[in-house]
């Protein structure tokens, strides 16, 4: 089995597998570990308002590495990639639309809580 990585005629002679080269797998692994260490180190070292964006940016880079190489997206059919990424769109829709509506009920919930005893009292 050759190590071809494109949809060439050769790939059809040998089936439909696209084995990932070992050095590439190792390189992806090393980058993922690097970014994990980076995000732990940066935790507490960047200004508060940047904390979440930086952590999410690093997580997304890691996610992209996993998707592209470990999950073989670079060799996969376009529709599969599209289908998978559509879930992110709907996740975003769910989060954003619900977020638009939060806050309105909070005063009422707070009042309700103040007038209703907690189920588990907090030990001081």
């Amino acid at each position, binding site marked *: 089995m050759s190590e071809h990585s494109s949809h060439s005629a050769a790939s059809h002679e040998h089936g439909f597998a696209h084995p990932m080269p070992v050095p590439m797998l190792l390189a992806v692994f090393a980058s993922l570990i690097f970014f994990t260490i980076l995000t732990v180190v940066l935790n507490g070292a960047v200004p508060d308002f940047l904390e979440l964006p930086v952590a999410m940016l690093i997580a997304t880079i890691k996610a992209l590495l996993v998707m592209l190489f470990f999950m073989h997206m670079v060799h996969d059919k376009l*529709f599969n990639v599209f289908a998978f990424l*559509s*879930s992110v769109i*709907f996740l975003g*829709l*769910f989060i954003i*639309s*619900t977020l*638009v*509506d*939060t*806050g*309105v*009920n*909070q005063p*009422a*919930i707070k009042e*309700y*809580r103040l007038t*209703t005893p*907690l*189920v*588990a009292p907090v030990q001081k």
Partner: protein
Amino acid sequence: MATVAEPMLAHKHEPEENYLTCSSGFLSWAMTLDHKRIGVMYLFAVTASMLLGGVFALLVRIELLTPDKTLMDHNTYNHMFTLHGAVMVFLFIIPSIPAALGNFILPVMLGAKDVAFPRLNLASFYLWVAGAIFFLMAIAMGSLDTGWTFYTPYSSSVISGSQAGGIVAAVFGAFILGFSSIFTGLNFIVTVHTLRPPGMTWFRMPLFLWALYATSVIQLLATPVLGITLLLLILERTLGIGVFDPALGGDPVLFQHFFWFYSHPAVYIMILPAMGIISELIATFSRRHIFGYRFIAYSSIAIALLGFLVWGHHMFTSGQSPLATVIFSALTFTVSIPSAIKVFNWLATMYKGSISLATPMLYAQSFIFLFTIGGLTGLFLGTLAVDIHLHDTYFVVAHFHYVMMGGTLIAFLGGMYYWWPKITGKMYNELWGAIGCLMVFVGFNLTFFPQFMLGSQGMPRRYYTYLPHFQGYHVISTIGALVLGTGIGVALATLLWSLWTGRKAPANPWGGVTLEWTCSSPPPLANFEKTPTVGDPYDMEQVKWDAKTESWIPRPVSERTGNSASH
């Protein structure tokens, strides 16, 4: 399997064996991987659920005959309307057309031997059975009276005692049914993508397949959210996670967001396959090429996607923020556009067609009439100012019954009559079929049209009692429900009766030109002896009536006048 060589029968046109006769015994059904048998099992299961839900409905209607106690006390009444809703939605409507008729028809219509994952298909069926068992357990464990929507905080913290077990069982049942639905949708999408035979391009797919495809997309994207919502509700009840329970600092309105993120799109899980059936019926029984094929196909996808943007219209009076309310109201109106496109295209298809009013077509006509009323009254409810008055009244009840029952149930019956000869190999009695349809139509309108009046005058939904001056409408509604129930009984009995007395069905009794009419009735186990040739699914020129065999047969190419696909 299915590779039994039949050299002796080579001269015969029809195979000796079909999917019903190729094997027998309980296990040959219980362990079958054949999509047709699984479809038939679903057909029995969802029809039984419909009858169960219908009994609950009739009990509710009979109770409402008088403002005071007629049959049952108020607690029992609360259980009855909850069970009616939950059974009808989760056990009947959602799986009705996709899982039962879709399972049988989709691969055959597509020209495939089976769905992509036959074992997953069987697993979906057993998940449905497991979900149904949990529902029955809920009834046995003290039942539930939350309404089918399980709103918090009532469902999460108010109910206690004997009913507590019932609600967890019912919620878990719905959770399992959700996965049944997800796996059916997944199976259908993959089947449509990878098992189309040569020549079956996307735009040669019958519109029922487009509708099932769009439905599957919703099942895949929305139902997991129902799963996590119900799981969180179970955790709220058992561990007190406080996400929805205001006593612990949670937000009960958040539950409504979660619930309707699934349940509004689920409305399109219920109606899109129905629309798909209607497209098939209208074309076949008008003997005309469907008008605006691509518009109908794309409108299915558009409805599926737009359906995700409007869920907040269920929460106009729930304390939703004004901004969200306005956005959701505006988006709600956009869904009416693709729905109207379909209706106009059906009407245009019938225009100057040679219409035959066989029973399936009668159901299709009923559908167009009832769905139009249901759709238009939906616009009233999507309008903010009007909804404040109409919210949680009988107007809403009437509206969604016109869509869900006047739409989905009618189309389900229409589809069942249409494909019954294919599924069972028997022709039913047309006269009794028509009588059943007429009773259903009249009974339906008697039941639900008065409810528009009730609602616009302020009668709230789900109430056990009412002001005396509402009684006239309630009496008409209850009488209508009894007529409707009898009509459904007649319709189902007519079909069952045909199993004993029906004439043997030809391969193509209606003159349909989609692929399922090219294989024998009932189809052989592998559907097609050889890979079918695929043409325009609505080119009615491809077949002609043959009086001798009382069936439609392929028209030789030399007899065809032209390309009717140019319509």
